[in-house]
């Protein structure tokens, strides 16, 4: 059996010492897991190494750590695979997950971050009335569809490496938003509109994600949180036509319009388009605010007035064809791990066992078009009135202030919300990354 050296990040809050690395060498099979190696060290050398673990089979979600810089479960990361991530002969580094405070060694405070964010998204079903005597009759496809987000084991790997959360600790984040999709995508839920409105209007909500794909790479269960966030956006923006006060939806549309027209990104148009076009009253303050950046860019020759104003590039036929094909589809295709078009996948060979390097097949490669019906389209394109009905379960949505009229143009310089913020969106306490307050 080969030798593997683990370089474990140790931290004992009672010692008064700073965190430090500690090396341990174990003799183990190459297909043994990093967790097995840590448990071997604990068993034979030092029982004080702290790591949460139970099932050893990637189902309980306890052993989220960073291995050679990548988040994941210690129990389903093979030693050989972990070793291959680093340079030849280098130890395998194991350290606690990021974005969460460390309690001891590899144990982080998930409650301070992860679970508070979960509680932020009203994480329970708000039953569509009337509740049937027997089961709700819902399409099989919908239940299979939400199984992907149900498959989340709350390990925190995606939270660990969420770049948006690093910049904005109040970002609701990948795991909690994937959880939100589990309700929005569930036909038995009564308040998908209210949920989407809430998550769109929150400046730390669905439009705070920057598409970095880290959560998709991190997730050991193929939940693909970013994909779930994008689905929330499409349902919110396209199906329910929710125009959020953060201009998230308009910003996204501006990208699409920009590419459709130019084939490449024309940044001078992007900003005004995100506010409804150059002539829209909302755009003016934004443009004025961005003038220092524009002037700096001009001074350094990164942009010229001619380039900015007279953009000549036109979208080539191939780009137009892509838009035509996608927009011409009768229904929107969504990626989903459980809903597999096996034949498609066969063609791509995506389900073949990982080619040599032991890498799990990326979930997006396994996914294919699911037969998911579009969510209930609001009648005549109008969003249903988010009237907080009496007698509903005590959900935040019910305590939410009535939806405001179209938000006034909010100058970005003035960050104070002109929108009556729901109570729980108030500034979180400065000493924690808490985004919510379940009063416990």
């Amino acid at each position, binding site marked *: 059996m080969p030798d593997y050296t683990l370089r474990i990040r140790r931290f004992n809050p009672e010692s008064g010492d700073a965190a430090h690395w500690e090396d341990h060498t174990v003799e183990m099979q190459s297909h043994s897991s990093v967790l097995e190696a840590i448990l071997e060290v604990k*068993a034979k050398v030092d029982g004080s190494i702290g790591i949460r*673990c139970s099932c*050893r089979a990637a*189902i309980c979600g306890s052993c989220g750590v960073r291995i050679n810089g990548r988040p994941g479960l210690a129990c389903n990361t093979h030693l050989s695979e972990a070793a291959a991530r680093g340079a030849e002969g280098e130890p395998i580094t194991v350290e606690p997950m990021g974005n969460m405070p460390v*309690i001891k060694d590899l144990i982080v405070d998930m409650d301070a971050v992860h679970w508070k964010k979960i509680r932020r998204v009203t994480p329970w079903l708000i039953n569509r009335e009337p509740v049937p005597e027997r089961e709700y009759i819902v399409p*099989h496809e919908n239940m299979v569809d939400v*199984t992907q987000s149900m498959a989340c084991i709350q390990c925190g790997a995606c939270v660990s490496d969420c770049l948006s959360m690093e910049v904005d600790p109040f970002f609701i984040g990948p795991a909690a938003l994937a959880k939100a999709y589990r309700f929005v995508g569930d036909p038995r839920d009564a308040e998908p509109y209210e949920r989407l409105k809430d998550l769109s209007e929150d400046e730390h909500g669905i439009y705070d994600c920057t598409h970095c794909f880290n959560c998709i790479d991190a997730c050991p269960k193929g939940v693909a949180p970013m994909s779930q966030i994008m689905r929330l956006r499409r349902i919110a923006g396209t199906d329910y036509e929710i125009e959020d006060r953060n201009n998230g939806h308009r910003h996204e549309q501006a990208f699409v319009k920009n590419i459709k027209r130019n084939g490449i990104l024309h940044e001078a148009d992007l900003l005004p388009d995100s506010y409804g076009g150059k002539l829209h009253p909302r755009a003016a303050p934004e443009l004025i605010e961005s003038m220092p950046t524009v002037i700096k860019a001009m001074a350094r020759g990164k942009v010229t007035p001619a380039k900015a104003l007279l953009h000549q590039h036109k979208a080539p036929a191939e780009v137009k064809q892509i838009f035509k094909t996608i927009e011409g589809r009768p229904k929107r295709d969504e990626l989903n791990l459980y809903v597999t078009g096996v034949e498609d996948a066969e063609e791509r060979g995506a389900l073949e066992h990982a080619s040599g390097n032991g890498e799990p097949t990326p979930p997006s490669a396994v996914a294919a078009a699911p037969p998911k019906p579009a969510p209930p389209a609001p009648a005549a394109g109008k969003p249903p009135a988010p009237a907080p009905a009496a007698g509903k379960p005590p959900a935040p949505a019910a305590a939410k202030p009535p939806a405001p009229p179209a938000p006034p143009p909010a100058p970005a310089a003035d960050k104070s919300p002109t929108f009556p913020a729901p109570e729980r969106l108030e500034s979180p306490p400065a000493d924690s990354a808490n985004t919510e307050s379940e009063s416990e």
Partner: protein
Amino acid sequence: MSAGGPTRPVESPRMPSHDVLVIGAGLAGQRAALAAASAGATVGIVSKVHPVRSHSVAAAGGINAALNPEDSWESHAFDTVKGSDYLGDQDAIEIMCREAPDEILYLEHIGVTFHRNETGHLGTRAFGGASQARTYYVADITGQAILHVLYEQLMKHHERLERYEEWFTTDLLRDEHGHCSGAICRNLRDGRLQVFDAKSVILASGGAGQAFKPTTNGLIVTGDGIAQAYRIGAKLMDMEMVQYHPTTLAENGFLITEGARGEGAWLLNAAGERFMEKYAPNKLDLASRDVVSRAEQTEINEGRGFPDGTVALDITKVPRKRTLEALREIVNIGRDFAGVDITREPIHIRPGMHYIMGGVKTDSFGQTNIPGLYAAGEVACVSVHGGNRLGANSLLDTLIFGRRSGEHAAARAKTMPMPTTPASKLADVEANIAAIISRPAGGRRIAAIKEELGTTMNRYCAVFRDAEGLAKAHEIVRRLKQEAPLAAIDDRGSVFNQDVIAAIELGYMLDVAEAILVGAQERKESRGAQFRTDFPKRNDDEWLKHIDIVVNGGDVPQVEYSPVTITRWQPEERTY
């Protein structure tokens, strides 16, 4: 206890008191807590891990209920009685099967994403030992889906339900009248010990799989509740009945769900023969688990298995699209832990320790012989599983008897004053833990003792047993019980001292292992999961009875018997 961590609290160490204290937050515990809260009780729920890490999360295949109009609870009950090899108590089985459909609907209404059939109604799959397809499921993550949805409800009802996550229970308390009056728990986060006073206590802390190696059970499944109750005088029952699941991975003992065979997978020996035709000509691969495990072990022992001591499970018989949709988890397990694409090739499996049918003896309201102490789920023995549990009946057991315990415990609490615990009890436990932490170095390592226990149990107390092997195992366990209190620990701290917890858990596992061995030696017949090669026949004349085990204040297990309740199904020969 040492100086204490930096987060040592200042408030009184006797703060928490609840009408109902639930220990363990898997399916049984969460269901009990929700039921007790709905009945108006104030509830505390304590768990040594975050609730969603509880081992219920690993239950894969589904949950049984006779919900279809063509099905009947009587049919479900008969299958369960037959599956139990007539050792199950039929009154309790009737209750469980009658109440099952409503429980499924409750789960559906609170949000469990059960998969549907083509008409949008709840879909079913076939499962072992069942005469109808009556297993409701969420892909192959049914336990996870239900556990997470129940946890959603705990979050929703947080005003009425105090959660104590990552608190380890060290001791159950009895007051001067002999009633269970609460528990002492250690906050893993800072090492603080706390008395939890309660009018009723519901144990829901699961089984004891870690007393065996390998096992499908998680590292947290260490028999805590069984041993805690046993130590304060509760009776244990059917402890000899240990289920070996027919399909576990050869190398590490991981579970391959019975749902695979439910969806159509076959068992094959090394020659490619569908050997179940010999052992269970009607039900084949879907006979009861004890029957299938024995068949596999016979094939292996008689040289028809693979050289690695396994037989094969051929999931390629299931349409690939269906496997990817409904058996996703085992696709991943095959890929990540065995390097096999189960949609393309058979996977090597063997019987592996999975579940203990026995546990703390209760009535159908979860009441133990200690007033105020309830038990539900795998920690308990009602007994609905008797000699052998049917697949997909364990989730049902946890939920039905979790709910019934919660309701009954809440009603009892209404009639009781809040007990108060003398401070000396806390001091005793503090002293015990301080003694563990300050043990001198030199003894064997805890992990070494646990390893010897696990391999011993798996060698002598598995699918086939005999007097000689069981006696040998018992002797070893007695020796380990001497060694365990001397085992040194490395961690002297207060924050997440997992070493001290492991030392306490080792003691629990040894107690449970001894009770299992005493029961297995006592039962001189073969019934359900207990197959004695020296007594290969079922013997209803002498052994159609439960074996109860109790320690009356001492350390030596005493054996008692109690009758099996038979309502309408007289014992018959059992064939599949």
